[in-house]
């Protein structure tokens, strides 16, 4: 296999007496979909927050391209080409899709107007239309407020925002949890398409069949540390559940990559 794109080594995070992460490891390679699974309280969210710059770990290190990095904020993570699709989507409902896509990364007009902070709305609109077309997202109008879009379309806007700007890694926290069957299929297609562009997609999900259908590899967290690394093609739902709950600890470790 190629060198890891993103690596977490022995990451520890405590909240008071709660040990959310106890020396957790994580690895993502370029151009793969890796699922991060674990029972409630296994430390998935904490690990993702650490890797996307939202929280700082107490101990351990994060490496991008093999070099240790400090991710002090989501902006730091962005500089390394790491984007996150949050479970709540983090969209401004009153702004349109084009504005949401560029939120915090607006394009400005040239010359004096640009220096005064005047936005280039036409350029943002064009870039949004191009991005949605590339992702195969069916948005009839990028100019209506996001509030007026369906759940699947909102999801698409959030995913597109991450895809457009991520050049290395995208974290997706439960991207299909709120979606219907058709929309779920679309999001999974999008995930595969993003992977085919050489970007690593880290999928956090509770839905085991979905994980097996879309992921290339699966990493399992239990009680704040990694307990298994599996190749999706060679594993079963029973095996995943066993690794998550610890019932099949031995079996899980045998299957480790």
């Amino acid at each position: 296999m190629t060198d890891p794109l993103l690596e977490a080594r022995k990451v520890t995070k405590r909240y008071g007496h709660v040990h959310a992460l106890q020396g957790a490891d994580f690895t993502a390679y370029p151009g793969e979909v890796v699922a991060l699974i674990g029972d409630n309280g296994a430390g998935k969210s904490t690990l993702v927050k650490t890797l996307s710059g939202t929280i700082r770990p107490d101990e351990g290190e994060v490496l991008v391209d093999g070099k240790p990095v400090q991710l002090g904020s989501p902006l730091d993570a962005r500089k390394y080409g790491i984007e996150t699709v949050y479970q709540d989507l983090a969209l401004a409902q009153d702004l349109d899709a084009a504005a949401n896509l560029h939120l915090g990364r607006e394009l400005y007009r040239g010359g004096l107007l640009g220096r005064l902070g005047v936005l280039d709305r036409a350029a943002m609109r064009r870039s949004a239309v191009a991005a949605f077309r590339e992702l195969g997202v069916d948005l009839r109008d990028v100019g209506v407020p996001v509030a007026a879009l369906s759940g699947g379309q909102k999801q698409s806007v959030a995913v597109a925002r991450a895809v457009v700007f991520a050049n290395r890694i995208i974290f997706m926290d439960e991207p299909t949890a709120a979606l219907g069957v058709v929309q779920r299929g679309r999001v999974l297609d999008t995930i595969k398409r993003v992977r085919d562009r050489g970007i690593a997609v880290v999928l956090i999900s509770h839905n085991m069949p979905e994980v097996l259908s879309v992921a290339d590899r699966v990493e399992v967290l239990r009680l704040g540390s990694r307990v298994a690394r599996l190749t999706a093609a060679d594993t079963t739902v029973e095996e995943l559940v066993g690794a998550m709950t610890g019932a099949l600890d031995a079996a899980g470790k045998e299957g480790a990559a």
Partner: protein
Amino acid sequence: MSADTPVKDDPAAATGGPRGRSIPPWLRRLADVNEVWTFGVLVLLVVFFTAARPSTFLTSYDVTQIATNAAIYLVLAVGMTYVIIVAGIDLSVGSVLVLSAVLSAEYTIHHGGAKAGWGTIAVSTVIALVTGLVWGAMQGWLVAKAKVPPLIVTLGGFGAALGIAEIITGGQDPTGAVSNHLQHAIGFGKLFGQIPWLVVIAFATTLVFGLVLAFTRFGRYTYAIGSNPEAARRVGINVDRHLVKVYALVGLLSGLGSVMWLAYFGTTSIAGHATDNLTVITAVVLGGASLFGGRGSVLGTLIGVFIPAVLSTGLIIMGVQQYWQDVAIGVVLVAAVYLDQFRRRGRERA
């Protein structure tokens, strides 16, 4: 852009043609614009009063008078629009106006009084603006950093600013508060002998901050924070600093309002601004801004300021007892918000 898929300004017609409704798309678009509805209400009022009193309503005297009366409220309402869009509120505008007026008047009184020259006028104007700016920024800091709800911060500010003004003056409007030069030039003066300077200042302010809200990063972040502050934070917007700026802006505009007030009325009117906040909030909400944040526009506010102004002038001309104005404005406010919500629910059921 490739030419095969026409995704441009009219995608509804491009992709939604077969399943589109029978209403033409341009009309649907127009109906989606809040300002169109608000403007419709304003036009209805004008038509009604013109029909009722064709010879007296909307003479040129009326229009100038309505605009002059509304000028100061318009300046305050422009600032309030920003605050309401970030899901805040500012109850302190009238008191901040009074405090700014009093501090600037104190300087004028001790530097020439009514006969003071332009040097004094310049300094007292700066004092008024800085007072508003600093007071607003302080309130903004309390909202953003100390996390005190804006309703409480500005309710406290409303009382405190007025109290300080009364302590300084002993509760009496001081004499010699304004230079005669300022009153003659700005208060009663007219641009090209036609448009009162107060109206010019108010419209220039409205234009500038309307453009800023609609077309710049500052405006975009204002909407984003009002829609979803957490999302704004996650994409790297400095939400706290932006909130301080927005409250500082409404303070600054209250300071500007105080200069306009002094120029026009020649007195600080300490007791005359207790309900400015309600007047201004009414105008902004009539203009389509949502108290939950994320929605509103300066154009809407401009129309919203003129609805009560036209209503009260019209009722006066029709000889209706003055107190009915308040009833009418209250009813119009609630009806406008009800209709607006009704319309939005219809649009957002998807």
